[in-house]
């Protein structure tokens, strides 16, 4: 009666994969396309409004980024952001909104554990890897760039 002997872990994993339903990728892509498209269109409209009203192009871009971040954080606080992601997936996450949500959500959840050990220690539990490896990657690229310069290899 030992079920374990009848299947290896690999066989079992393959069998489980076979019987587990998965999301439809094309449908998810369509939803993500329109959700992401809507967010970007809204941001673009915001940018136009600023530039039309005499804000410099570069400053307007910064304000637009800020607009996306603040909106995502607000929606997170109102418990609406996770519902949007549940529908739109990466379409809602890839614009900077996903990063804002991943910082705001732990801040809300761990507030109860205190300013230091709660928010302080845990605010980057999700975004931490992105920040660490993002910084690290830019550092590595910086070194490489430096080396190329020294060896007089010109590029880009």
């Amino acid at each position, binding site marked *: *009666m*030992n*079920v*374990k002997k*009848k*299947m*290896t*872990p*690999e066989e*079992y*994993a393959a*069998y*489980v994969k076979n*019987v*587990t*339903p*998965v*999301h439809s990728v094309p449908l*998810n892509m369509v939803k993500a396309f329109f959700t992401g498209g809507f967010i970007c269109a809204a941001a673009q409209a915001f940018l136009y409004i600023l530039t039309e009203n005499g804000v410099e192009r570069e400053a307007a871009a910064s304000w637009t980024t800020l607009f996306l971040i603040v909106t995502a954080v607000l929606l*997170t*606080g109102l*418990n609406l*952001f*996770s519902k*949007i*992601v*549940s529908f739109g*997936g990466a379409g*809602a*996450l890839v614009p900077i909104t*996903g990063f804002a*949500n*991943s910082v*705001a*959500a*732990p801040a*809300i*959840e*761990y507030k*109860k554990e205190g300013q230091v050990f709660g928010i302080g220690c845990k605010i980057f*539990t*999700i975004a931490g890897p992105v920040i660490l490896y993002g910084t690290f990657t830019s550092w590595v690229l910086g070194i490489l760039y430096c080396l190329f310069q020294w060896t007089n290899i010109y590029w880009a």
Partner: protein
Amino acid sequence: MKGNVFQRGKASIGFEEGPLIIGCASVAGKKEGEGPLGELFDVIEPDPMVGRETWEQAESALQKEAADLAIERAGLVRSEVRYLFAGDLLSQLIATSFGTVDLEVPVFGLYGACSTIGEALCLGAMTVEAGYADYVMAMSSSHFASAEKQFRFPLEYGNQRPFSATWTVTGCGSFILGKKGGHVRISGITPGKIVDMGLKDSMNMGACMAPAACDTICRNLKDFGREPGDYDRIITGDLGQVGRRILLDFMRNNGYSIRERHTDCGIEVFDSEAQDTHAGGSGCGCSAIVLAAYILPKLASGEWRRVLFVPTGALLSSVSFNEGQSVPGIAHGVVLEHA
């Protein structure tokens, strides 16, 4: 090996008298209250915080409420309950510790993941049957938000759940066992062993636990010399749709067809389409509230005569998962009969 007549097979026990479930209570959250079993729960808590400050305190509040209601239903007072067997999903069982402190009942804190109520009923039944206590209580709870926080992500974090994922039930089920009164008897038990098929997907816990459920059900049938037809229902804890499919396949490979008589508390508790819960409900509270609100009344009325109740648990922690360990499963079998 020569055992006494109560020891059946390698690990089952057939009780001579069998303790009775003389009182029970189910306290459920709002979402559970909106599910197909909504009308059956004793109490539905509309506030996910239950008027407390944190998710963990809220879960403790559910325990306290369920414990007191079950004691009242059994016609007892707190001091008459000799021992409490209880558990939850949180680290170091904090929902139980803080939820039961006011009861002033000696407590055995149990961890069997979502199978905890099965473990509690097994131990409680053994204690009462042996005469070590006149009345004991078995209880387990879970809370969607405290479980998400501990095992997955902060609540407001946006992500897409796969179809195999389950939704942790907010609720607590509590049961008083004794020798007199009540219409449901625990006639036997088949404690579960840990079964590890090497699966590592914590978002597909039904598949992690199904082999353990199969093992326990097969051992139960063998130890008691029964066929699936001897049970009106075989009810697993929180396998969900994916786990159910696997369990039925595995049982068939072992020569048993249980399709008609199998159901799963996780599948019963939510309407997966309307409530967007995907594979079903899960958590310590899932099988406990479904047992109290749905299964026991049907046994008490005699609609079902004998049921094999098999709460299932996935034995992982966020540490074991991050360290690349598999997710082993466990399932405890409890034979419930109309009395």
